[in-house]
């Protein structure tokens, strides 16, 4: 059966000033970045969802579609702060399987 869209999972690591970045705030910042840079339509096309965020390791996994990986990647890369905490970001890996990423980076 042909799928409507293929999902991609993007693991990324934050380098925050303080380890107080919350998952909800991070998701909101990524949405804001997506909408501000690419508009509401492109943001909707990404089907973005912040699946996981480990506050201890500062590693997150975000979901998007296979056609919008670069868009989500640049939206995340252009985050400069979350809740006034300055951050740097690095994308670790992009995969089609959530389980693989969880196993590799979040030890689940």
């Amino acid at each position: 059966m042909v799928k409507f869209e293929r999902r991609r999972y993007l693991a990324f690591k934050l380098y925050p000033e303080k380890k107080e970045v919350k998952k909800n705030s991070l998701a909101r910042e990524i949405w804001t970045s997506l909408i501000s840079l690419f508009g509401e339509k492109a943001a909707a096309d990404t089907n973005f969802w912040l699946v996981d965020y480990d506050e201890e390791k500062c590693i997150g996994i975000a979901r998007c579609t296979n056609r919008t990986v670069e868009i989500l990647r640049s939206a995340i890369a252009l985050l400069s702060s979350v809740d006034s905490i300055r951050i740097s970001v690095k994308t670790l890996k992009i995969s089609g399987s959530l389980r693989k990423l969880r196993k590799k980076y979040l030890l689940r």
Partner: protein
Amino acid sequence: MPIMYYDIYVDFLVPDISKLMQFARELGFSGICICTSDVKILREISSSISKNEIDLDVGVRFSIRENNVRRIKDILPNIRRYVDIISVVCTNREVSAWSARDGRIDILTFDSYESLRVFAEGAARLAGENKKAIEMPIRLLLTARGIKRARLLHEVRRVLWLARRFGSDVVISSGARSIYEMRAPRDVLSIAITLLGLDKDTALKAISEIPRKIIETSREKRSRNFVLPGVRIVGKMGDKNGKV
């Protein structure tokens, strides 16, 4: 062979240089250039770099930000021999056109919306003829928001389009003033493709091949054996190794 990524614009304002170098390595860079605009601290930077034990190619860069060509002419002879890269911020049309012609300057760079605005077709043509690189620091996009960023993006695209039209090399760097403004090379590539209007090949060269070539050429020029581009002394008559 793995791709070697370079970030040739990291400001010396970053307090801890060893931490900065470690972070650059972690992000995946093979080399960085530490930039300053102060002649007095060039020696301090060189000594910090010499202590470097991390597997990272670190260069020194001098950035000139002057509104007057005469001031740039005064500064240039004193520093060319001591730094790997010299860049000039395009503050006005006169400065950008003059810098695009001068052989001692490697890169034309931008630090604000206003400096992007002054870069015109004439300067772009001169930069292309004289093989100058045009640099775009990602920091500009990180610090702006909303309408300001939208206008900035338009100007960035215009400048990059002019650069490619007249055959200049394009370099993308972070322009970071703290480690929080540095981004991983592959993420910079994504920004260049999705927002700056570059194709993947040009964007990849802009963060790897071109910056590396600029540093290597400059180091070659500064070496004692350099005579002209493509000509260097390999030995002298009477030398043990000289085969003349």
